[in-house]
Structure formats: structure tokens, C-alpha cells
């Protein structure tokens, strides 16, 4: 009896030990042997092994205002993909196509074709799907359909500042604007995770071999101020509608440093939907479109002549009563005058007067001054697509060339170049390199890049610049061509321009570029602003069309930036009692 009992106990113990042994061995085997995994786990490089690229986030683009407004950032999204082999094997083509078409707003027939290809193991269904919709797709548990993590670039304010910001293409690389120029800083670097997965395809945390965290892209801080940009955009949009203009551009620059506070180009596009935009809309006209500046260019020639000492502000020129034959061609003035001083040539915008000053200066000197003012080369702004304009080499000049250049014909500049000339006069003769990126800061707060203002050249002396500022101030006085640019409480300097557009065989009689380029306050200039409307109708002169826009933008900008006009000194007369 006792023997039998002992035998029974032994068997129980043996069986128990065997079970324990088998169970433990099974568990160890489960953990250590390698298993195959299902569809959609592309990150698995072998049986049970995992190698996953950890996606990085592109840095944000932030404006210069104290509120540091975010203008571009990356947010999470998912790509929806499928393994058609599994979809077909599970006879789920019809159901998958129907459900995916409903959730992703896609064509059902196309989806059916896409999913019904058993020879393929991967097809992309939809990219950058919002998380919420992606979750709905996952919850359907469609065989062979899976989602993968990605990020999508978002521009929360739509078309606002689109030409400066640019956009990011489908491969995640910057393809225009700051996004393109600062791509190396913005893009960051992806991380890597290598390890193992269990039989259910889950990562075994304790078996991680590498876990290199992704390095997020640095944040780019612009010189653009969101509020000044908004003022400029609103004013230009209204004017575009009012004057039925074909296009237009505005630049606001801080004269002492070359910082661009606002840059607007119209027509515009929404960078969130850059695929829908045409090239015309994507073009940043402020830097990538060249035009004949017309009379706006006269200050460059007059400043050169004054700086060289060949004329003085009160030197009188015979302006031929508005009609002058030179080099076998007739040159006309918009308003006929008999005699004008150099100062009045600017104020009344006399073509004949400017041409005569140009001839007095001489071709070689004119050429060297204009090159010093930045003609014939790009200004070097930190944006892609900047044009250098058209400026004939001195050797190719004809007898007429200096007379035409003096009135802004026969050359072509970008808005940025034209503003550079005016800003140089406002900045004591120093031509500054314009820039839109102020600094670049890494996620850990380290400063990676800080822009330092650069003086490109100094075409004129500060005394000449001071004289030119006084002359340009007369343009916005009551009898000047740009009187509509005036702002109550401030003295403004500037120049109007109404340039006929070149057409085959000559110049158009109906299509103009209307421009005003100016600065303020006159006594201590802080801001330079350029406004151009392309083909405004029916009014087309810079004084009527562009000058009021300058006034509207400048008036708000000086209030916003708290730029005060120096107090007017009133000479008190001593009165005896």
C-alpha cells in the first residue's frame, strides 16, 4: 500500500517537473526563436529583427515679433498603404476599395484596380492622412491595409507670407523660399531603432540594440514681422482689386541693417496646397521679377552727379519745354517746363533734365556709380530665385543709353534692387545686403546662425545722401509728384515712377508699372518701402496708384514700430513788452 502511494507521488512529481520544464522551455523558445510577421511591417529586416527609422520633425519658421508667431511647422499624419497580395488572398479587394474610397475621398474604381494586383506587395494609397482618419482606417482592420507614421508640413496662415516661406515638396525637402534656402538647418536628421520583436510582432524593449533618437530640425527666426506683413498684404490686396492690376509687390526694409520686415508678392498661393498653384503664382515678384523702374531710378543718377560734384542741387538745366531731340530720337517730359534746377528735376520728374544730368556726369562715371548701387548683380538676399536684373556692359552702350538709363529705361531691376538704391540714400549712402533670416536656433537652444548686417558698397558720401534726402522730401510735398505718399506728422522722402512696359518695337501706351519707393522719417530714416503695381487700370501713374499705398503701409508701420518723428523745432521770436 505504502509502495503504491510512493510510486504515485513520484509520478506526480515527475509529471509536474516535466510540465514545468516543458513550459519554461516553450517560453524561452518563444522569446528566442525567430518568427515571421504579417503585412505592413517593413521595418522588420529579418525573422524577429527590427530596424526602424525614427522620423524627424522639420524645424519651425517663426516671425520676428515679440509674440514669436509660428508660420510653418510639422504635425503628425499617417500614410495609408496596402499589400495587394494579402488583400487579394483574403478576397477583400471590394470591401477595402469601398471603405477606403469612403474614408479617404478617393475613386473606388481606381482603388479596386490598385488593390487587385496580387503580384505586388506594396502600393501607396494616400499620403499625409490626418491622424483621426488614419485611426478610422486602422479600426476597419482591412486585411493587407496598414498605416505608417509620417509628418506633414503645415502653414497655419495659408497664403500669408507664402513667397518668403516657400513650401516643402512630397519628399519632405524645401522647394521654395526659406524652406529651400534653409533646408539643411530645418530638415533635422532621422533616428534609428534596432532590436527584436516577439512572436506577435511587438518590440521587445529589453532587446533594443540601438536607439538613436531623431534630431529635430532647428527653428528659423525671420526678420519678417507678422503684423507689418499683414498691413502690407491687406493694402496691396485692396489696391490690386481697386486698380485691377495684373500683379504687384511690396517690400518693407529697415534701412540701417537691410532687415526685410515685410515682403509681399501677388498673385499668391497657399503653400498647404502648392500642387494646385501655377508658376505665375509661385513667383516671388519682389526678388524674381525684373522691370524697368522708370522715374523711380532718377535719384540714382542725380545722386551720382551730386556726389561727383558735376552738378549742385541748384544747378539749372534747360529742359526744352518738354521736347528734346538727341541722338536722332525725341525725348519728352510728361509736363513741359523751360528751366529746372537739379532738385526740381527730381521733384517734377523731368526725363529731359535727368538725361542732361546723366550726360554731364559722363558714361564711365555713371557706369561705376550704378554698379556701386548694385545694378547688374543680385543683392544676395537669403532667398532662392533672386534675379540680378538687366544692365548692359559699358562697352555696349550707345549714344542714347545714358539718357535712357537716367529715366529708368534700357535697364531692368528687381523691386529689391530698386529699394536698395532708395534705402542706400536713406542710410547715409551705405548699400546693405537685404536678409529675411535673423537667426537659426537648435531645439536645445544653441544658436546655430545669426545674421550680421553687411554693407555691400558705399556709392555716395553721407553729405550727398543728406542732400538727396532733402530733394526726395520735396517729391512728397504738395506740388510734388508723390504728394499722396505724405503722412501726417512725418516727413517722407521718395520717388514716383510710371514706367511704360516694353512691347515688341517700342513701349506700350496702355500698360505701365506704377511704383513708389520711399523712406521715413526724413530726419532719421528707419524704414524704406517699395510699392509696385503691374498694369493698373485705368489710372497708371506711380503718384496716383502707388504713392497712396506707401502712405497707408508706412503710417501703420511707424505707429506699430513706435517710430517717432523728431520734434519740430519752432523758432520762438522774442517779443519785447
Amino acid at each position: 500500500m505504502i509502495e503504491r502511494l510512493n510510486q504515485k507521488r513520484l509520478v506526480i512529481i515527475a509529471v509536474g517537473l516535466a510540465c514545468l520544464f516543458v513550459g519554461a522551455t516553450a517560453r524561452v523558445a518563444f522569446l528566442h526563436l525567430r518568427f515571421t510577421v504579417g503585412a505592413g511591417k517593413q521595418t522588420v529586416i529579418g525573422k524577429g529583427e527590427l530596424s526602424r527609422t525614427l522620423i524627424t520633425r522639420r524645424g519651425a519658421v517663426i516671425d520676428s515679433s515679440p509674440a514669436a508667431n509660428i508660420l510653418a511647422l510639422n504635425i503628425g499624419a499617417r500614410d495609408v498603404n496596402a499589400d495587394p497580395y494579402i488583400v487579394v488572398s483574403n478576397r477583400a479587394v471590394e470591401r477595402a476599395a469601398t471603405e477606403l474610397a469612403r474614408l479617404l475621398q478617393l475613386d473606388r474604381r481606381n482603388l479596386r484596380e490598385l488593390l487587385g494586383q496580387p503580384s505586388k506587395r506594396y502600393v501607396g494609397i494616400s499620403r499625409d492622412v490626418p491622424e483621426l482618419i488614419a485611426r478610422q482606417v486602422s479600426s476597419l482592420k482591412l486585411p493587407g491595409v496598414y498605416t505608417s507614421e509620417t509628418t506633414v508640413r503645415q502653414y497655419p496662415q495659408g497664403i500669408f507670407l507664402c513667397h518668403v516661406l516657400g513650401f516643402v515638396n512630397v519628399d519632405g525637402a524645401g522647394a521654395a523660399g526659406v524652406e529651400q534656402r534653409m533646408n539643411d538647418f530645418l530638415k533635422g536628421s532621422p533616428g534609428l531603432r534596432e532590436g527584436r520583436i516577439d512572436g506577435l510582432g511587438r518590440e521587445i524593449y529589453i532587446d533594443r540594440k540601438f536607439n538613436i533618437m531623431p534630431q529635430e530640425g532647428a527653428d528659423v527666426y525671420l526678420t519678417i514681422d507678422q503684423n507689418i506683413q499683414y498691413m502690407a498684404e491687406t493694402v496691396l490686396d485692396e489696391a490690386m482689386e481697386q486698380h485691377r492690376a495684373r500683379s504687384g509687390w511690396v517690400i518693407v526694409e529697415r534701412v540701417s541693417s537691410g532687415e526685410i520686415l515685410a515682403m509681399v508678392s501677388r498673385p499668391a498661393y497657399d503653400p498647404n496646397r502648392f500642387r494646385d498653384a501655377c508658376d505665375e503664382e509661385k513667383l516671388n515678384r519682389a526678388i524674381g521679377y525684373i522691370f524697368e523702374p522708370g522715374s523711380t531710378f532718377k535719384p540714382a543718377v542725380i545722386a551720382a552727379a551730386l556726389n561727383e560734384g558735376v552738378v549742385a542741387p541748384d544747378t539749372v538745366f534747360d529742359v526744352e519745354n518738354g521736347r528734346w531731340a538727341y541722338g536722332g530720337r525725341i525725348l519728352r517730359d510728361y509736363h513741359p517746363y523751360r528751366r529746372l534746377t537739379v532738385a526740381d528735376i527730381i521733384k517734377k520728374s523731368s526725363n529731359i533734365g535727368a538725361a542732361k544730368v546723366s550726360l554731364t556726369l559722363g558714361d564711365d562715371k555713371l557706369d561705376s556709380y550704378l554698379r556701386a548701387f548694385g545694378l547688374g548683380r543680385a543683392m544676395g538676399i537669403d532667398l532662392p530665385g533672386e534675379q540680378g536684373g538687366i544692365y548692359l556692359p559699358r562697352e555696349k552702350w550707345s549714344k542714347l543709353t545714358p539718357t535712357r538709363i537716367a529715366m529708368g529705361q534700357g535697364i531692368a531691376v528687381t523691386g529689391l534692387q530698386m529699394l536698395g538704391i532708395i534705402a542706400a540714400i536713406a542710410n547715409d549712402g551705405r548699400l546693405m545686403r537685404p536678409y529675411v533670416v535673423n537667426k537659426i536656433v537648435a531645439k536645445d537652444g544653441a544658436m546655430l546662425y545669426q545674421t550680421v548686417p553687411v554693407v555691400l558698397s558705399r556709392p555716395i558720401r553721407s553729405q550727398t545722401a543728406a542732400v538727396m534726402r532733402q530733394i526726395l522730401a520735396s517729391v512728397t510735398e504738395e506740388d510734388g509728384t508723390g504728394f499722396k505718399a505724405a503722412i501726417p506728422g512725418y516727413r517722407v522722402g521718395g520717388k514716383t515712377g510710371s514706367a511704360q512696359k516694353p512691347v515688341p518695337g517700342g513701349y506700350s501706351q496702355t500698360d505701365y508699372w506704377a511704383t513708389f519707393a520711399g523712406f521715413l522719417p526724413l530726419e532719421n530714416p528707419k524704414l524704406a518701402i517699395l510699392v509696385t503695381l503691374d498694369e493698373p487700370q485705368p489710372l497708371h501713374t506711380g503718384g496716383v496708384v502707388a504713392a497712396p499705398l506707401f502712405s497707408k503701409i508706412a503710417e501703420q508701420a511707424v505707429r506699430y514700430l513706435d517710430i517717432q518723428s523728431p520734434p519740430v523745432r519752432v523758432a520762438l521770436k522774442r517779443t519785447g513788452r
Partner: protein
Amino acid sequence: MARKNRRLHADGYLVPTLLIGLLVLTATGCLLYLSLRGKAEALGREIKKLETQRTALRERLRVEESEWSRIRAPGNVVKALEIHGIQMTWPRQEQIVRIGAPSTMARNLKGELAGVTRRQPTLGTMLHD
């Protein structure tokens, strides 16, 4: 015939002690290993859960930042003001009151005055004399 001493002679197959010992040792080792592994995995799951949570929170922060940026856009602020019938204009120069930094003399005077006000009256002092 002498009776068989059952205590000294067991019938049937006896499992060798060495084998049993080996099995017990292996099973114990396995159990210990599994126990430690289980604990490590539990911690790993917790870490992964927190990693996921952190990612989700960062994502939420980004979405909020994006939304906040959109709301704060000057165009939307202007629209909001219009909805509420608020018209905002820039103040005229003469409407602006500028408060400059206090001069050194004013600061010294302020300091002296502060010293005076901090002085506590002693007992028995007539407060209203």
C-alpha cells in the same frame, strides 16, 4: 524463506537523483530567468507606454500650436473684432502718453520715501500730533 525487506529493496524503476536534481535546477533556472525577464519586460512596456504618451503629447502640443498660430493670425483677429463689432484704430500722436524711465534723482527720492514709510511708530508715540 526469509521475508523480503521492502525498506531495503524498492520495486520498479527509480529516477536517478542526479537527473531529478538536474531537472529541478534547470526548471528553477528557467523560472528565475522568466521571472526576471518578465519584470524587465513589464518595465519595458511601461517605458514604451510612456514613450508613446510623450509622442502623443508632443503631437498634441504641435496641433495646439498650429491652431493657436492660426487663431492669432492678424487676419483672423480682425475678423473676430468685426464679428464683435469692435473697431480699432491707431492712436494719434497726441493721444499717446509716454512714461519714461525714472531719473536717478527721482529714484533716490523714491528710495528715501520708501524708507520713511517703512519706519514703524514706537510705543507711546503720538500718531496724530
